[in-house]
């Protein structure tokens, strides 16, 4: 699996707001650790990127500053994908059971594994939706998407 070779600043937001029931939010990306491990690589490897992650509520201005800082944004269906869109910055959005055609923006790169995983009641409460890790793309797809975007960017 090829990695991004150029130095790059990547902003992650992979965990949504906690549910009132205490259950895992079905929007949370299930392969966060594997994704990070892919970027971090072996302990003695040369680092070509800087990673920052939003893990909880932060002031809106701080989110805006992080978006300004980042070269790439990888996030779930959260406020960050809307904020990136608002600021005119493209995000790679990791969709699971919510429908990007309703809740997403065509300006972002929307990675939806398969429409069959979309929940039937798109406007229902998330507390009534079970978690399904199968609904998400793997880290390999994310890396592939990033590489393709990089090649596209360089060629244009």
């Amino acid at each position, binding site marked *: 699996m090829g990695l991004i070779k150029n130095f790059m600043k990547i902003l992650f937001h992979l965990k949504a*707001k906690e549910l009132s029931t205490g259950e895992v939010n079905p929007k949370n990306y299930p392969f966060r650790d594997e994704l990070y491990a892919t970027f971090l690589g072996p302990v003695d490897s040369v680092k070509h990127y800087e990673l920052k992650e939003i893990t909880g509520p932060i*002031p*809106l*201005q701080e989110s805006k500053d992080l978006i300004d800082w980042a070269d790439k944004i990888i996030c779930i269906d*959260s*406020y960050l*994908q*809307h*904020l990136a*869109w*608002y600021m005119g910055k493209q995000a790679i959005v990791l969709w699971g059971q919510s429908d990007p*055609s*309703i*809740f*997403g*923006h065509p300006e972002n790169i929307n990675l939806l594994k398969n429409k069959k995983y979309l929940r039937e*009641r*798109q*406007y*229902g409460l998330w507390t009534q939706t079970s978690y399904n890790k199968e609904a998400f793309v793997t880290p390999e797809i994310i890396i592939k998407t990033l590489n393709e975007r990089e090649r596209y960017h360089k060629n244009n």
Partner: protein
Amino acid sequence: MKILAYINTYNRTKTLLPIAISSILNQTIKPTTLIIYDENKEFKNPLDNPTLKYLLDLSMEKGIQWHWLPGQRKGAHYNHETANLKDYDFCWFLDDDQVAEYNCLENLLAEITPEVGAVAGLIIKTPSQPLPRDLDGTLNDVWKGQNIQWYKWEGKSKEVQHLYSSFLYRPNISHWDLRLSKKSFRGETMFTHSLFLKGYKLIVTPNAITYHFEGMGGCRSVEEEKSNQEMYDHDNDLFRKWLGVTDKPIIIADNGLGDHIVLRKLLDDHNIKDITIACCYPEVFEGFNCISIHEATQRGYNLDDYNLYKWMEYQQWKGDLYGAYQKLYENIIPPKS
């Protein structure tokens, strides 16, 4: 416990006022004091009126101290405020065209707890009517020109946002608004809603009943140089300003941060600034007039009417969030040409 019962009266001395007074004197729980604020042009000694004398003698016999005082002739709210500033635990007033059931005061007092600021019963014009389904005791009812107290219903008492006509209240907490015209239109709503805004509960109990007999007279019929309509308009404008209701259209965003951001983009794209936004994340709407969701409900807005996700579900919406907001608020945000 010291309870002041009082009546503002105008031009009903020979008709309904004696019946109103009698209903106070015959309560199962007696007030400590009865005050009549006499708004008639000419103040006459009540003891010169045989019917009133019988009633006032009866009042003394029952241990209820009475006072018959000239009103200030500036509107009922002035007399209300005078009563409000007296040293009593509770004030209870009837209009001079009302008759309280014998156990009205007892049943009002039964609802009093430390959190309760005022209690009202039902104010029934005969024949009584059942309670319409769409009334809920919020300020929404005011905008509809309705009140749950006007209807006959049974069951549990209801917590409301305002009271009307006759009620029992804790004095010296809020004040009657003396800026109102002589009509004192919306006076009771403003007074009781101000108790509500101070954190007190307002209760309507179906167990306390007062009958309302319409007839000539009454403090709102006092002659005045301004027309009735001018005074009603003045009081209504004052009420709306007091509530913070402006002519600005309102958008209510009782949803997530991401939804707020989409709404902001929509407003920016259409160059819309002059609106009020009730929201959860005002930092998204810097430069806009923002209020809290709580304040929106206190102003009488029904959040369900503005719930984007409920609307999308009801519409089986297949478009995006941006389009959904645009459609929901198409009266404020016209489609871009």
